[in-house]
């Protein structure tokens, strides 16, 4: 426990010491702010007091932002050689991966917390449905959990941060956008299948205030899968 905490603390410290952390924060807040200001459906006089329109495209934004947050987690340890000092200390591979994962999530949580300004403003000027707001934030956190696990898996595959970002962001972007568009044109059983991995669709259910078990299980299970794979990749130096 203490070891995992130590790794988490160190990881957070280096996130705050690198420009990437701040660029990511600024970028996310800027895009979300732009959505709030320029999207006529949000914060318009007489419009419903809902966050849905501000966060509509957030899953897509996060496919760029989260891989940038997590790209250095493991690949930087490979590149600088600190992976060796870390792995010759009495810590298990799982503790290392978990510590880094939690650190990235804490950072992500702070980023998301910054957007709480919008529901607060809505409360000031209108009458938002707080149940819906809560569901939306649960959705955002679940999205973060899954994307972070996947991006860390990408980071564990290479010693180059830029490559780690591409390996993380490209599949996520493709998944989010192409599945979203396919789900609108396909029909019948094909649509049924593609809906299972429709991240935009699942997220919009949260944004509408729907907390469904299958959505929660989908995000948590895929996160668990990629964390497991990350541990296996980190372990692979032992049998390669």
């Amino acid at each position: 426990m203490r070891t995992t905490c130590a790794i988490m603390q160190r990881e957070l410290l280096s996130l705050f010491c690198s420009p990437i952390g701040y660029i990511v924060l600024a970028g996310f807040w800027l895009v979300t702010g732009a959505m709030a200001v320029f999207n006529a459906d949000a914060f318009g006089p007489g419009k419903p007091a809902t966050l849905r329109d501000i966060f509509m495209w957030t899953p897509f934004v996060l496919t760029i932002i989260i891989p940038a947050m997590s790209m250095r987690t493991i690949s930087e340890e490979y590149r600088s050689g600190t992976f060796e000092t870390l792995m010759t200390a009495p810590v298990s591979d799982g503790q290392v991966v978990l510590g880094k994962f939690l650190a990235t999530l804490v950072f992500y949580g702070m980023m998301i917390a910054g957007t709480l300004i919008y529901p607060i403003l809505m409360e000031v000027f209108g009458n938002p449905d707080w149940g819906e707001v809560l569901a939306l934030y649960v959705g955002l956190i679940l999205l973060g959990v899954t994307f972070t696990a996947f991006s860390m898996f990408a980071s564990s595959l290479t010693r180059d941060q830029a490559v780690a970002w591409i390996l993380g962001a490209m599949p996520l972007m493709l998944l989010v956008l192409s599945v979203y568009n396919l789900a609108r044109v396909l029909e019948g059983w094909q649509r049924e299948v593609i809906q299972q991995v429709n991240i935009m669709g699942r997220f919009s259910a949260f944004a509408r205030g729907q907390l469904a078990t299958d959505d929660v299980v989908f995000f948590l299970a895929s996160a668990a899968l990629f964390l497991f794979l990350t541990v296996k990749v980190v372990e692979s130096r032992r049998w390669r």
Partner: protein
Amino acid sequence: MIEVRNLSKYFGSRCAVNGISFTVEPDTIVGFLGPNGAGKTTAIRILTGYMPPTSGTAKVAGYDVFAESLAVRRVVGYLPESNPLYPEMRVREYLHFRGKLRGMDRPQRAAAIARVVERCWLNEAIDRPIGQLSKGYRQRVGLADALLHSPKVLILDEPTVGLDPSQVRETRSLLRELAMDHPILFSSHTLSEVQAICHRILIIHEGRIIASGTVDELTSQLSDQRRVCAEIKGPQQEVVGAVQKLDGVVGVNATPDGSWTRLNITARGNVPGAVADLALARGWAVRELRQETASLEDFFVKAIVDARK
């Protein structure tokens, strides 16, 4: 403290370590000597639990490096080859982090950090970011980390590479001091270093240990033939003829230098004494007479040449 039996490591079909065996006794410094790429780092990485061997066993302080990897990592202090550190952390932060990884609580860490900072002369650097430190200071940070948990065994991979001469000297004296309480296994490709501080030497080449022993044992294994250089003033043919007849002279190679004759003698036994007596008896002047003693370097080069055959 370290017991290695028939250890091998293959990367694919490439053999990095080929069936090595050795032991390191308590309170000794053992030098792991070999040219670059000989397998030193791989062997050390196996001993520190970073990667498992393909075959064979290794025990450190009684724990098996494969089956009890975490226990081994708890008792070993390890300084990897390139001494990787986190540049964004301050020295104190880094040492606290490493202490936490080793499960030390705050008072334990504070005491341990005070001890290693004293020992590794890190006082001035303790609150500076590691990225701003000189190479010498970083090396000390690495050493301080390796000593933090009072390890039972110290394993250092090329601890003096890239240091300037005075830092090298400091590090060596620190190692000698440390060897009083911990056995040390350290690798190097610099002979003079190994010769200066090690009790025992293992020479590794292409994954195999080709020689081991103390410096004296190794140099005495070299052939007992010595090279003697002499410059004598006298008629060349007469000089060469007389020297060749001396006891213990195996071969003479003469080159004239004005009225002097320069002799390169391959010899056994006390040939310089005999040459001096001869010159004195014949009334020849002598301006140089010296015997070259075999060095560890000769041994090293010879061992590697022999291994190639």
